[in-house]
């Protein structure tokens, strides 16, 4: 029998070791798997490379993981925002590495990684500093930049509804990077608001087919990042 559900959140993140590459779903707070990130803080691996669009807010979730000194390198497109304080301080102090990637290139690198495509050419970033040192090739009279697919040891994502096979549905714009990250990681870990019986999700509506999912943990009432930031909450 296939049952990807795990009983504890510690089991969900077990095995994420020092030096691992971890994709974390979410665009700002929408789709951020905060409970899984906090479990990763509790587990405590160091020298992580984290792939996310941003760098977190306040002192919870991704920002707290960075503040805990567990992240050696961020691969992201927009590392600053209104309530992002932790990353900018560490970056200015030279204590964390940044690989800045245009948002669409980041998405396509993850998609390519999940699809077994090692590299591709794109127009994005041509003639800009973000193309410096990259291979350029002309197709149909236009220059394109070579970019590499991204894969990860683990992906941590949040979804709205799942079944024990790992078929997933998301909520509105909280979907963002999660479906492609599920395809690009060796082990995909999902926190789901609802877990339903197999057969209850309409096959026509499945967003992420279960083949891309390894572990499933039920978080029925996830915290809301902006509320925690507003309240000044710090994790741990």
């Amino acid at each position, binding site marked *: 029998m296939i049952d990807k559900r795990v009983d504890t959140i510690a089991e969900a993140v077990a095995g994420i070791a020092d030096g691992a590459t971890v994709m974390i779903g979410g665009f700002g707070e929408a789709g951020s798997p905060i409970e899984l990130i906090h479990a990763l803080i509790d587990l405590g691996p160091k020298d992580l490379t984290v792939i996310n669009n941003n760098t977190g807010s306040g002192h919870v979730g991704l920002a707290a993981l960075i503040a805990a000194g567990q992240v050696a390198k961020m691969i992201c497109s927009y590392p*600053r925002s209104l309530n992002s304080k932790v990353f900018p301080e560490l970056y200015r102090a030279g204590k964390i590495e*940044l690989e800045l990637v*245009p948002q669409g290139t980041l998405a396509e690198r993850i998609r390519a990684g999940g699809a077994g495509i090692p590299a591709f050419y794109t*127009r*994005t970033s041509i003639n*800009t500093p973000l193309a410096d040192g990259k291979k350029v090739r002309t197709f149909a009279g236009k220059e394109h930049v070579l970019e590499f697919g991204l894969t990860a040891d683990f992906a941590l994502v949040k979804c709205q509804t799942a079944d024990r096979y790992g078929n997933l549905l998301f909520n*509105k714009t909280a*979907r963002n990077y999660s*479906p492609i990250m599920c395809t690009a990681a060796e082990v995909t870990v999902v926190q789901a608001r609802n877990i339903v019986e197999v057969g209850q999700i309409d096959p026509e509506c499945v967003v992420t087919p279960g083949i891309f999912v390894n572990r499933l943990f039920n978080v029925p009432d996830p915290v809301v990042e902006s509320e925690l930031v507003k309240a000044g909450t710090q994790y741990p």
Partner: protein
Amino acid sequence: MSKPGDNPRGWSREEMAQRTALDIPDGAYVNLGIGIPEMVAQFIPAGREVIYHTENGLLGMGPEPSPDNADPELINAGKKMVTAVPGAAFFHHADSFVMIRGGHIDLCVLGALQVSQQGDLANWSTGAPDAIPAVGGAMDLVAGVKKIAVITQHTTKDGHPKLVQACTYPLTGKAVVNRIYTNLAVVDVEDAGFVVAELAPGVDFDFVRDRTEAPIKMRSSS
């Protein structure tokens, strides 16, 4: 003559957004950047149906929600809460950027630090050594969207021209901007450089030329 930057003439921010909206045709798929571009949606003339794309994964973005309708999982690219109109679609990031990079979006309206006479755009970084570099979707948008429009003040707060011979800030894209809506004029970027298509009320061509670093011409009325 008044000094550049302290003129009371020309269009307000709302009027720049309104002027931009006049050029958006019925049926267009449009991506609006953060700031003044966001305001364009409220000025689309009656009778035109325009679909707004936000790169975090929504086609059919509607206005800001009422407080009882607000959902932190329904946001735009600026991470502000929005609504989804009837007929909207949600999708993941790779599909969202297929729309952008695959040339499926008709128009993108962005802000700018500088635009050059060749249509080069600088809008993501001032290159300051202590700044945290952040790019988001800007380079994808200028590389893939069919038409790129910019809304910007004609000069910086301290009077420096933003329509320049060559950008001094790091580029977002080279030769990508088609049309610029400033507080003083509507300016097209053509092979020959900047061409004024329309002047704001009360603004004459010399006033615009004096505040533009690169050569600029008036469109001949033929």
